[in-house]
């Protein structure tokens, strides 16, 4: 069996892990997979899915560039009669899926909620925070930020003041620069809430070189990448959220095969996010 995998972006750390998990699982099962990189472009992804359909694959797995583009992708696959499984990102047309389509993933807002709630707890509901945003307009940025804002607006966390929020495009160096700029402007946040781990790591570097003690600031991210877990080990990073690349990858592959083989399948498979803190760090060190 041949499965086409259309990923939104190869450069992203978490997606790389997800991709490797799909590949590894496919190798174990003797399934042939072909990966494509949409480089963050919806139209490119659309074309790749069309190309897969035209070259006659048995099924397609896609990690969408954006949730709202789900409908167009569904239509292509439906017309070609090819099974389609969305992985990780929840498509906007989830409720109106045609046959032979499913979603396997996690809810971005849940990640933001877990992260912000834990930060709020560590701050005991009061203090000053800055938010590091991912690339503006992306689903991850929107979902995680929205949940974070909701949590901080909640009754328990109202005491936390958001000093500023700016984008660092998911990347470490821009976050390093942004944080340094904040520090020089005289901001002394008690918490840095980041849309992902890479940016959190950049913030840590900036704070460290400004001589801020890592015990005084709560730093949080999402993804639980290797670099992030190492940073947590050394006590720099306080909170991250584990997204099971393994669970999503294997689930997606198995679901698409089920559809292709005409077996019964679930249209919605959720792999929950899990909160990672120094207390349960050891459980995750070996996972990804």
């Amino acid at each position: 069996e041949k499965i086409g995998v259309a990923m939104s972006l190869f450069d992203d750390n978490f997606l790389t892990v997800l991709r490797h998990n799909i590949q590894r699982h496919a190798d174990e099962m003797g399934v042939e997979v072909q990966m494509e990189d949409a480089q963050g472009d919806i139209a490119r992804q659309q074309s790749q899915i069309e190309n897969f359909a035209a070259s006659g694959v048995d099924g397609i797995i896609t990690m969408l560039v954006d949730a709202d583009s789900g409908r167009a992708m569904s239509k292509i696959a439906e017309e070609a009669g090819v099974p389609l499984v969305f992985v990780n990102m929840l498509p906007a047309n989830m409720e109106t899926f045609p046959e032979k389509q499913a979603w396997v993933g996690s809810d971005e807002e849940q990640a933001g909620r877990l992260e912000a709630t834990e930060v709020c707890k560590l701050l005991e509901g009061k203090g000053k925070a800055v938010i590091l945003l991912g690339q503006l307009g992306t689903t991850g940025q929107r979902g995680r930020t929205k949940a974070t804002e909701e949590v901080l607006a909640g009754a328990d966390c109202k005491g936390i003041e958001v000093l500023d929020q700016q984008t660092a495009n998911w990347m470490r160096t821009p976050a390093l620069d942004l944080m340094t700029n904040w520090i020089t402007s005289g901001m002394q946040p008690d918490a840095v809430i980041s849309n992902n781990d890479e940016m959190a790591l950049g913030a840590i570097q900036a704070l460290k070189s400004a001589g801020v003690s890592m015990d005084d600031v709560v730093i949080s991210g999402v993804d639980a990448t290797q670099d992030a877990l190492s940073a947590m080990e050394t006590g720099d990073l306080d909170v991250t959220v584990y997204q099971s690349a393994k669970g999503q990858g294997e689930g997606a592959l198995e679901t698409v095969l089920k559809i292709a083989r005409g077996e019964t399948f679930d249209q919605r498979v959720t792999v929950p996010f899990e909160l990672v803190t120094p207390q349960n760090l050891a459980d995750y060190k070996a996972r990804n």
Partner: protein
Amino acid sequence: MDNVQIEPAARKARRLPADLGILMVLVGVALVFEIMGWIFQGQSFLMNPQRLTIMILQVSVVGIIAIGVTQVIITGGIDLSSGSVVAMTAMVAMSFAQAAGYDRAVYPSLTGLPVLVPLAIGLGLGLLAGIVNGQLIARTGIPPFIATLGMMVTARGFAKWYTKGQPISFPTDGFAAIGNGALPVFIFLGVAVIFHILLKYTRYGKFTYAIGANAQAARVSGINVQRHLVKVYALAGLLSGLAGVVTAARAETAQAGMGMMYELDAIAAAVIGGTSLSGGRGKIFGTVIGTLILGLMMSGFTFLRVDAYYQEIVKGVIIVAAVVADTYRQKGRGKAGI
């Protein structure tokens, strides 16, 4: 002047259209994919109408932009803003194209409008962006690179700001129809034919080439260089607007990140097709071929299951090789180097 000799043979060689070379490169690349298709996949690459359509379909948006960019480059300018203008017009057009009754519409009272409204708004906004580019370049004399770079950043910013990063979705069926099936291909080819005629058979076209070849000479010949440049950039903007509408209709959603780096693909298509960045030279036909070469590669790689990690490496090599092949062919015809 009786002593001016132009040997008929030499002249004939000269009359061979230069863009035939790049057409041969296109055919060459296609054949390589065809042969490798039989070897590795046991099936034909080209004898698949669906694949041929997709091949053009997936580059038609870039192609539409590339046509506008070609005429800009012929004047000796450049347009870096096209990709961002695509995003901006896609967002704004889509916000007036949302289906009736969609409760989260950007303008809840303006849903279910006839398709002409978002189309006109999209084209109009693109045109406006183009006029701003043109006016900046013509009036202030700043380099086109800077003017359109400014527009690139600004239009992208506008697209993000417009709905604070939220995508805009659920268009009316009428709007979605613009991107349906092979319609984008026909739009692309139609635009190509129009601009081919425009550049080759109208004064607009002659002025465009003249300005690029020698702006000073064009001016002393009585051409209003400033005014013409505004027109050229305006048309390029209009086509970016059209591309924005098509891409939004095709994806049935509009997002601030759309059209990222399309300007580079468009410029590449033009240059692969023989348009000279120093101005005065270039043809729409060449740009269409250049666009198709890009499309061919995208389809071909997926078809041959080239590992995504290698795809880009191979793509870079093919682009260079295509232009090198074309350059050598032209040199063979006796052109002097530097």
